[in-house]
């Protein structure tokens, strides 16, 4: 049976409403006043864009919302979307000292949203590029968070930035690929507009390599930033994979970002293969669009899943189901449509290797299958458009982590295409660092700040640096050190 949409417009809109709405002024004030205003706050060290978090929170407490938003956006131009999509429990909030006082961490994400919403709701421009331009021009390939972060910083440093985006809109995964109830495409597009207002030009519908070559760009521009992101979802390579009801997770999510919610087709029994954060986005959204059963199928056990605990909790609250230790071996077909999955049980052998248990196959009825196995690297595309740029063994762009510079001195890189796949906030931070790297290439001038260096950790006379300089994740630290 082909699948159709299942809900009326009102129900669909209600189910997809934001899970964490904007704070009321009183809620924001109470929360802001809880913040201790730590000096070299660990949250700054755990933010990959190094936002002066205690600084912006105290500005909320003093009713200086415009200043608060300026503090956020000057470090992270996508502070509005990061406030909504950051896994704060392993970043800033995970590092909050309140946890060590046996109290709940400050709700940094929600406060950040409160401050940045003030700017968007009141249409304020809080950042102003210099009037004096350097005359240097930078082309940015890809219009996602890394390029937006890089372009905004370049504009603020006085350089011309032009983004080339293949799709009809910029914003990358923020516009097309994040669960609707966390971040709406409208919000992402407001941030794109914010970047444009800094003087950044965005040329959409342009596929670099097809519509324009890198060689042509090099004639017009002084430097190039590669913010190409990642590609398609990995294939299952099993029979039935090309049936019409088998989707890539990001294609399914994109579907409900570019079409009215009540027109998005969804199965009544949906299987999602994989258990990362994108799988969670897919399984919850299928459920919220009316699926009776929305089931994660994961080859390993509950403890091994890559999704954050917070995301796992979200999916369970939404009534998603989980089948662990199972892999699909065939997508079952009836009359040219998906009618189920043949699955096999798995086990981990003594060497820690995953094995499929022979003879353990079983079948379950599904009418839609969503693949969320992680994204492929853009290796072929990169080899074709920038053949001289070195790639790492796993197909990422090789670059200096502090400056984003590749082996080709005027080509820089950041974001998923360079780091292999991380958070939006990491992409913005890497874009920003690359912009500073480009600025250094142009002017030989190093940019630091904006935070007083002693506030980012000092041992003796040695500065330690913020999360922009050394991105960390608290969960990894706890595993490694505690």
């Amino acid at each position, binding site marked *: 049976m082909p699948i159709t949409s299942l809900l009326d417009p009102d129900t669909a809109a209600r189910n997809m409403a934001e899970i964490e709405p904007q704070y009321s002024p009183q809620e924001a004030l109470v929360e802001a006043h809880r913040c201790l205003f730590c000096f070299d706050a660990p949250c700054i060290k755990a933010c990959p864009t190094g936002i002066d978090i205690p600084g912006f929170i105290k500005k909320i*407490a003093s009713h200086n919302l415009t200043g608060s938003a300026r503090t956020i956006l000057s470090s992270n131009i996508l502070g509005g979307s990061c406030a909504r999509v950051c896994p704060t429990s392993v970043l800033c909030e995970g590092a909050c*000292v309140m946890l*060590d006082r046996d109290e709940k961490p400050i709700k940094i994400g929600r406060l950040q949203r409160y401050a940045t919403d003030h700017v968007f709701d009141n249409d304020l421009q809080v950042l102003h590029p210099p009037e004096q331009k350097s005359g240097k021009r930078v082309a940015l390939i890809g219009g996602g968070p890394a390029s937006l972060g890089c372009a905004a910083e370049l504009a603020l440093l006085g350089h011309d930035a032009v983004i080339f985006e293949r799709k009809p809109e910029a914003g990358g995964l923020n516009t097309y690929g994040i669960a609707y109830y966390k971040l709406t495409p409208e919000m992402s597009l407001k941030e794109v507009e914010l970047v444009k207002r800094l003087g950044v030009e965005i040329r959409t519908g342009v596929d670099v390599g097809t519509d324009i070559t890198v060689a042509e760009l090099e004639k017009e521009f002084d430097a190039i930033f590669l913010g190409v992101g990642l590609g398609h979802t990995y294939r299952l390579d099993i029979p039935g994979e090309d049936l019409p009801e088998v989707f890539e997770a990001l294609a399914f999510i994109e579907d409900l970002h570019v079409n009215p919610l009540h027109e998005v087709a969804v199965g009544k029994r949906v299987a999602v293969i994989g258990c990362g954060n994108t799988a969670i986005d897919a399984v919850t959204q299928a459920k919220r669009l009316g699926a009776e059963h929305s089931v994660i199928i994961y080859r390993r056990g509950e403890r091994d899943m890559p999704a954050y605990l917070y995301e796992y909790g979200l999916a369970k609250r939404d009534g998603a189901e989980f089948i662990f230790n199972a892999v699909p071996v065939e997508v079952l077909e009836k009359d040219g449509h998906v009618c189920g999955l043949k699955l096999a049980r798995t086990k981990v052998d003594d060497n820690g290797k995953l094995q499929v248990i022979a003879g353990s196959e079983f079948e379950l009825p599904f009418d839609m299958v969503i693949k969320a196995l992680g994204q492929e690297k853009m290796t072929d595309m990169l080899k074709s458009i920038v053949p001289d740029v070195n790639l790492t063994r796993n197909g990422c762009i090789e670059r200096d982590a502090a400056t984003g510079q590749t082996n080709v001195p005027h080509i820089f890189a950041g974001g998923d295409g360079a780091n292999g796949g991380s958070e939006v906030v990491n992409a913005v931070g890497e874009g920003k660092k690359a912009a500073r790297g480009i600025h250094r290439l142009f002017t030989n001038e190093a940019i630091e700040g904006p935070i007083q260096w002693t506030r980012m950790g000092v041992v003796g006379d040695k500065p330690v640096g913020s999360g922009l300089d050394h991105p960390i994740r608290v969960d990894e630290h706890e595993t490694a*050190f505690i």
Partner: protein
Amino acid sequence: MADLSINLAGIKSPNPFWVASAPPSNTAYQCHRAFEAGWGGVVWKTIGEPIVNVSSRYSSLDLNGSRMVGLNNIELITDRAPETNFREIRECKDRWPDHAIIASLMTDTRENWHDYMKASADAGADGVELNFGCPHGMCERGMGSAVGQNPDVIETIVGWVMEVAEIPVIVKLTPNITSINHAARAASRAGANAISLINTINSITQVDLDRMCPEPYVAGQSTHGGYCGPAVKPIALNMVQECAADPEVLIPISGIGGISNWKDAAEFIALGSTSVQVCTAIMHYGFRIVEDMIEGLNDYLDGAGMKSVNELIGRAVQSVQRWETLDLNYKRIASIDYDTCIGCNLCYIACEDGAHQAIALVDPEAKGVGLGPGRLPGKPVPEIKEKECVGCNLCALVCPVDACITMIDVDNGKDRMSWSDYQAKVASGEMKPIPAHP
């Protein structure tokens, strides 16, 4: 159970907690509700020639999310007729014979004072309180703080009152004066039986930056008000102690100023108050707060082995001495407990930018305390530079963790030496002047 009953200059009360003369003590209805809740006494809202109030009368200071840390008012004395107030005092006294009702009075001429004193005694009031403190509205008419700011006038008016006094007289003092001692001594010289302090402090709480006018806003204008509430407690405690320690005062004290709970009350009593008066906390939460005050004071007295609240009165007065008598050789330094330190480093920056640069930031691994609470790799921990630490207490004050930073007494083997001793020793050549700090 400790005995909480008190006797302030002949005014008996089942406990030391009195409702201060203010909006909560305006009517018999409120007086009944206060006694039902457990208050020991009520000082009636000041009686005088009825006045006319403005609308919009209060404004507050809010601090870090806490409402009404300080309260400012421009309300005047009672707007009800003296006969109504005295009739209601009689009614309340008949129903609550064992509780204290004190008539607060404010008038002008000798005759009028005599009339009000007689009316108070006739109504059955246990005592009177002369309002020499109100800082707005009445002082312009030569009453309230206009009296309290001039010791000679205090002495004259108290003298008139004492000519006819049949019941104890408390004089309520204004803090809007350079030295509270002179006002208290004047009251004492004139024969007053007790003093109460402090009345409200002249104040403007904030300016509305859109209207360019302070609150409370009255048709495009505002005026200087009277400030009270938790924020004034330190000022009040200071003045209460000054009066309690003054050998020229020597009359009982009813303490007033930001008292919100039993602990505040106990501190006022320890610095010399016999009763305490409360207003702002009632205006914030209602009369019910007295339950905790009674229970808390009782438990404290039991725990401290005191059988009566009278044993607490004035216990801490003598510990407050002139600066020049303090021991210059006493030494304390800060000590950090790394097991509870959460790594906010507020102590560091408070000392570095705000005090004496006696805290360093060091590598926790090198320090040997490892990655404990609040520590990320590369995030330093604070370390006291013991040679530089002057023991000022600031780090312990800003530390948000209980008992994480403690101030430790250091035995430096030196004998006690006050500033006065030091001056004498230098003058006699017994010691050389201590070198100035670099």
